[in-house]
């Protein structure tokens, strides 16, 4: 066979080829991870800014606000203040003055904050990490091939994402401010600057998302082609690990969903820049006020499953590995994911129950939406079934996996309230929705991401992450997360609307001040906990305990590759002999049989 064919061309690569314009899927995966983590801090920081306003409406922010006031009142000039004075000179002062006069978040700025918070979190954090990082890093390794089908497109995908992020960031500093129509960008509000005063911000938002769409398109073509065409010998579809299945399905969803958003964004840009009236009903010969919502949610609902399916895949790996058991009902897990992906296309109307869509359609969408509980139930119960009679090891990745399951169940069950049309009348556009969002995307996707990072870190960087810090991060995140987002259900039941900058303007919300303060405090704790993660991450890259090739004793192919994984991944492409979850097979010495281990070969020792 082709022994060492690749090992031979082990030429040195320049720094730029290796770390920046790398064609290697592993490096691109890591680049997406760093990118996602940076954007996570931006998006989270914005959330903390507006959380402050929600807890203490019209009160100046600490630090930023205080310095500003000192400036105004000419009090105590400290070193920090002198620093501010310099910023005062530049245009930064104006910027702060416009958006946060005296350190108080302006209502218009508040809208920009949550718009960008959500846009960044959804399009620049969760998708890049779940799909970009895990997709790139895991697909070639787990299906047993040397790289992606189109490495150059792969690199392009990352750099397009960077370009999109830069354009999105510029939006904050253009006159008129950034997009302020929510991450859903509802037209007509977003379609004409006269309604928001936002000029180029909204355009840049749309352009940036168009570019991000290209990046996803290129990425998903790559993933689909690679998974269909480049599996190692013996790696049939039903021997693929579930995380690969989930990434495959998500690539198809991304491929088909994003172009719909692109078409909507293109129409929006025409409305804003070329004088068309697709979305504004008030104009002469005008368009349809609900058109945008249909287009957006036709993309948007598949998008939320893009945010969760890879998380489900990762959780399945973690739970099987650390229960030392095969996945319960492997095939039904696959079919359930396909069913979720399929049903995801016919439920978009559940975001529009109160939008003025025909009530009859509401009933149809309620039915299809509720049906999604069925494949979700299959997945949930199968995870429980996987733990049943297992031998559960409480490693940090496993803790994240368990947290994923339990938080997803809470988020999913709150989805049932909203899917129910009469109940949705009351809770639509309240904090009940915000609670749901965060239980599924933070409690779901992010816990899976954290678990995945800790789990695959030894393969990525050849070292363990510090376990004590990881555990502290997990527990702090878990507790603070629930303290932040669980009370939001109660706010929602109380009728607390979302997207309002000052709840104290409403009499019926007066009783919620204390709860809002509590939520904000918890959110800051939650933010603090993420600092631990990032510190641990970078520290461990250089200082972590060196890891062996297969530290968790996993069966799948990525652990067959040497650590650190060389260019070309495998010395010789492995041949696959069995399914991905052969744990605790009776009569075997080890409690795991690698996928690449030939039949009847004597079992090799685990470590």
């Amino acid at each position, binding site marked *: 066979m082709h022994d060492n064919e690749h090992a031979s061309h082990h030429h040195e690569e320049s720094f730029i080829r290796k770390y920046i314009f790398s064609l290697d899927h592993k490096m691109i995966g890591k680049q997406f991870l760093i990118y996602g983590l940076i954007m996570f801090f931006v998006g989270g920081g914005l959330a903390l800014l507006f959380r402050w306003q929600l807890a203490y409406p019209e009160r100046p922010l600490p630090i930023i606000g205080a310095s500003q006031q000192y400036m105004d009142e000419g009090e105590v000039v400290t070193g920090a203040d002198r620093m501010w004075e310099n910023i005062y000179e530049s245009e930064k002062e104006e910027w702060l003055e416009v958006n946060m006069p005296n350190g108080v978040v302006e209502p218009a700025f508040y809208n920009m904050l949550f718009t960008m918070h959500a846009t960044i979190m959804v399009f620049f954090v969760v998708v890049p990490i779940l799909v970009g990082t895990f997709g790139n890093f895991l697909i070639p390794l787990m299906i047993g091939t040397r790289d992606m089908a189109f490495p150059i497109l792969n690199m392009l995908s990352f750099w397009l994402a960077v370009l999109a992020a830069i354009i999105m960031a510029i939006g904050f500093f253009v006159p008129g401010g950034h997009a302020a129509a929510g991450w859903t960008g509802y037209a007509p509000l977003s379609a004409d600057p006269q309604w928001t005063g936002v000029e180029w911000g909204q355009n840049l938002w749309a352009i940036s998302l168009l570019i991000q769409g290209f990046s996803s398109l290129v990425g998903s073509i790559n993933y689909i082609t690679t998974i269909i065409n480049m599996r190692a010998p013996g790696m049939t579809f039903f021997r693929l690990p579930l995380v690969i299945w989930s990434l495959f399905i998500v690539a198809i969803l991304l491929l088909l969903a994003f172009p719909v958003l692109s078409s909507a964004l293109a129409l929006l840009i025409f409305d804003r820049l*070329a004088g068309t009236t697709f979305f504004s009903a008030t104009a002469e010969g005008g368009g349809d006020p609900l058109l945008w919502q249909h287009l957006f949610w036709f993309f948007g609902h598949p998008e939320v499953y893009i945010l969760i399916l890879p998380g489900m895949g990762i959780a399945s790996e973690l739970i099987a590995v650390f229960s030392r058991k095969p996945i319960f009902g492997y095939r039904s897990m696959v079919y359930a994911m396909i069913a979720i992906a399929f049903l995801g296309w016919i439920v978009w109307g559940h975001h529009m129950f109160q939008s003025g869509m025909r009530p009859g359609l509401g009933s149809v969408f309620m039915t299809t939406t509720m049906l999604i509980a069925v494949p979700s139930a299959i997945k949930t119960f199968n995870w429980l079934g996987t733990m049943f009679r297992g031998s559960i090891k409480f490693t940090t990745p496993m803790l994240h996996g368990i947290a994923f399951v339990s938080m997803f169940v809470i988020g999913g069950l709150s989805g049932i309230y909203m899917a129910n049309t009469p109940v949705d009348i009351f809770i639509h556009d309240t904090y009940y929705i915000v609670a749901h969002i965060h239980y599924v995307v933070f409690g779901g996707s992010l816990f899976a991401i954290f678990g995945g990072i800790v789990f695959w870190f030894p393969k990525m960087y050849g070292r363990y992450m510090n376990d004590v810090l990881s555990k502290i991060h997990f527990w702090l995140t878990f507790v603070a997360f629930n303290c932040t987002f669980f009370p939001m259900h109660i706010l929602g039941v109380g009728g607390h609307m979302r997207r309002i900058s000052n709840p104290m303007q409403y009499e019926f919300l007066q009783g919620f001040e204390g709860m809002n303060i509590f939520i904000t405090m918890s959110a800051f704790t939650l933010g603090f906990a993420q600092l631990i993660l990032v510190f641990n991450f970078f520290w461990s890259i250089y200082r972590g305990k060196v890891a062996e090739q297969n530290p968790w004793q996993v069966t799948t192919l990525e652990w067959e590759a040497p650590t650190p994984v060389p260019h070309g991944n495998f010395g010789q492409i492995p041949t696959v002999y069995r399914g991905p979850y052969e744990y605790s097979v009776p009569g075997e010495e080890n409690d795991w049989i690698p996928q690449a281990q030939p039949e009847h070969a004597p079992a090799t020792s685990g470590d």
Partner: protein
Amino acid sequence: MAEMHQRSPLSNARLGILVLLGAETMLFSGLIGTFLVFRVGNVTWPPPSHIGIELPRAVTGINTVLLLLSGYTMFQARRAIQKDQLKQLRNWLLLTGGLGLLFLGVQGSEWIQLIRNGLTLQSGVYGGIFYVLIGCHAVHVLSAVIWLFIVFGMAMAGRFSAEGYVGIDTCTIYWIFVVALWPILYVLVYLF
């Protein structure tokens, strides 16, 4: 490339292009859906303010035939390379590209005429969606033509043979998609 992969009936490049077409289909679905929302939502179409502006049905009908013809010639080009007939390949490619350019030319002159008649991007959703939808297709034809001429250049340089003609295959797949899409748009926008 001599890796032991599962034998696949389609090479990566061909599969990649087919996958791309999935995305293209959804892009046009979004625009066609928008068109239908306006078309079905308006009792009179074109809306009363546009009565008197006629879309050039007949000319476009002929243009449609031209484009369909180019699909045939593209197919012939592929047949030619399969038989290793390089000269025929070049001729068929040239003919295809010419038909594509002709299509664009006719479309362009139609647009100029329509704009003179007062149908512009700004004239309500009728003009808006007409130009955006048809324009989106035109951009696709244009990129297909450019791609075709690149392939033509490669053919001149003798880069294809009966053993290796992936470049022609991928271009053919894309070309056929662009061609096959057009009659749908023609029927919807001009006749429906």
